[in-house]
């Protein structure tokens, strides 16, 4: 047996050498891409579809790559908390030596994790962070998700025009980076648009009972409730508002956190008429988007949401940058190529990064109608 196995070993070694010598022509390089999504915890509803969107993109890119650049994805769960995010960031960057990190899901987590990547010099592409102060962390931090600072003014402007809003109440979660910065933007825009803020109410993450605040809001008789919340709390707020007898004519206007089919599923009938500004709408006729919606629905047997769409677009953006840089593992070169991307065709529309490495494309305003998000037209 012994001599035979030695022979086999020698054969294997020489085969490997031959393969290595020939490989540049055949199987090209593979870019290691780390994905940090909230697959469990409060933001699990977002993380799950993000992962699906990213997986679909990787699968399609690798199938089409032939002998070109391929992607090796590594998915990690940050459990919706910054502590776990820090752990998986360290693992991906120092252990797996990924070239790029996509994620994390929540802005709250991104504020803690992204400095780790910045310090070492690894490009991070946020595909759902919309709070302020994320890309300011450093020149390696990018995002393809439109910030609340772009989406909200557009939403309020359209809502004011169509509904003639004069006085509103602001209701938001004040212990979360994302919901709080959303509320700051809402406040600023409301003042700029000359809409009176009758009062402000707040809640904390994990709250289930919103009736005390909503009772106060009801007594103030606003034209609309402007709300900055994540989808779990948003669902409770929307259904409890209607249960408390706040009429449907008092629209609830939400930030990006409302933009998930989970809202409609959770709140059901009560979610009708909810207005949400967004970076993406499923009914967009952009051919890339139509194909994405088709492919996604076929693969996962349900339609995609914005988080899946942005994750899908994010993978393409990073891939294009790596291709332009002509490298699979040069972290610096990939960053430099990201900055140079201009007018890239994505399912979000023509996509570029701003000077501050934030997303630049046009937003939409949607409302819930017949159990679906559709483009808002009163």
């Amino acid at each position, binding site marked *: 047996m012994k001599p035979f196995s030695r022979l086999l070993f020698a054969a294997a070694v020489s085969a490997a050498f031959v393969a290595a010598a020939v490989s540049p022509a055949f199987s090209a390089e593979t870019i290691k891409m780390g994905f940090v999504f909230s697959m469990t915890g409060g933001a699990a509803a977002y993380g799950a579809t993000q992962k699906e969107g990213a997986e679909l993109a990787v699968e399609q890119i690798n199938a089409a790559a032939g002998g070109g650049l391929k992607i090796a994805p590594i998915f990690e769960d940050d459990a919706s908390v910054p502590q776990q995010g820090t752990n998986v960031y360290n693992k991906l960057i120092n252990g797996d030596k990924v070239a790029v990190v996509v994620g994390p899901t929540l802005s709250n987590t991104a504020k803690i994790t992204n400095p780790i990547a910045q310090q070492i010099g690894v490009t991070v592409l946020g595909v759902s962070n919309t709070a302020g102060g994320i890309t300011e962390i450093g020149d390696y931090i990018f995002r393809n998700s439109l910030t609340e600072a772009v989406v909200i003014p557009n939403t309020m402007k359209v809502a004011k025009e169509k509904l003639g809003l004069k006085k509103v109440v602001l209701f938001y979660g004040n212990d979360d980076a994302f919901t709080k910065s959303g509320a700051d933007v809402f406040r600023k825009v409301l003042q700029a648009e000359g809409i009176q803020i009758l009062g402000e109410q707040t809640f904390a993450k994990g709250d*289930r009972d919103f009736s005390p605040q909503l009772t106060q809001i009801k007594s103030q008789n606003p034209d609309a409730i402007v709300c900055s919340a994540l989808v779990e709390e948003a669902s*409770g707020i929307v*259904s409890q508002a209607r*249960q408390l007898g706040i009429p449907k004519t008092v629209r609830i206007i939400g930030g990006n956190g409302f933009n998930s089919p989970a809202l409609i599923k*959770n709140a059901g009938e009560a979610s009708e008429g909810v207005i949400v500004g967004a970076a993406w709408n499923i009914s967009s006729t952009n051919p890339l988007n139509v194909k994405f919606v088709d492919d996604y629905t076929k693969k996962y047997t349900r339609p995609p949401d914005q988080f899946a769409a942005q994750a899908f677009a994010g993978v393409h953006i990073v891939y294009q940058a790596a291709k332009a840089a002509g490298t699979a593992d040069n972290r610096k070169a990939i960053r430099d190529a990201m900055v140079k991307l201009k007018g890239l065709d994505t399912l979000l529309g023509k996509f570029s990064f701003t000077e501050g490495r934030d997303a630049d494309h046009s937003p939409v305003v949607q409302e819930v109608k017949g159990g679906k998000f559709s483009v808002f037209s009163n």
Partner: protein
Amino acid sequence: MNLLAQQLVNGLFIGSVYGLFAVGYTLVFGVLDILNLAHAAVFTLGGLVALWLVQAGGMSIWLAFPLATLFAGLLGLLLNQVAFVPLRKRADSQFSGLISSIAMAIIFEAVALGLFGARSVRFPQGTVSVHIWHIAGVTITSLQVGIVLVATLLMLVLTFFIQRTRTGKAIRTVAENERAAMLLGVNVNGIIAFTFFISSALGGAAGILYGLYFDSLAPDMGRSIELKGLAVIILGGMGSIPGAILGGLAFGLSEVLTVAISGTSNLRDAVAFTVLFAILLIRPSGLLGRGKTREA
């Protein structure tokens, strides 16, 4: 005025769920002088099992409610058998029982996580048909009324049971003095197991009502009520059933009013626990506590 009335109604609803949860908590403490820290996990599992019966089993909530309550009661028996019985004969069974109940809480929560996933889940639309009434400017839903009725009914039945029936008297005897009860021919181990059954069934029922009211269930939802339940039974007087009910209502009202007045929920727990602290300074045995007489 309407505003205040509505807020009081809001507080009454959440308070009655707290009360129901705390009654089960305090029952075990009254009998065994042991805090069963797995009570919150039973609360969670009760709610999740009811949801599972409705969703996967296609049952009506009227059938799922008693079945899930029964299931929670059986969990109580398991809890007693695994976490408390083996330790009871040891010298320091109070502390070791406390610790082993924490272990059971973690096991139950992990089971819930494994079976139901980490996401928040909801009862399907139309599980209970909801009517909305507007009475003198106060909005009340039939669901809320149902919750208060069920909670009140369960608490009344329990009070009657403890005060009037033979088994109830046996439970009180064991609470008073285990040794004497044994000498009187009471099956002490049986009574303790039965107490766990009732306590956990009530906890499970509270979990179902909580899930129905807020329309949101998650494996970690017990944590939000665990400390509150503890505060409620301290407030009401450890081991006192009417005290737990009263404490629950007081806690619910203080929470709602704090949020209503301050416009933020950050102060909610701070105020509730400050009230608890103040009451303990004035009445160390709680609102309806019996003080030290029992140990005399």
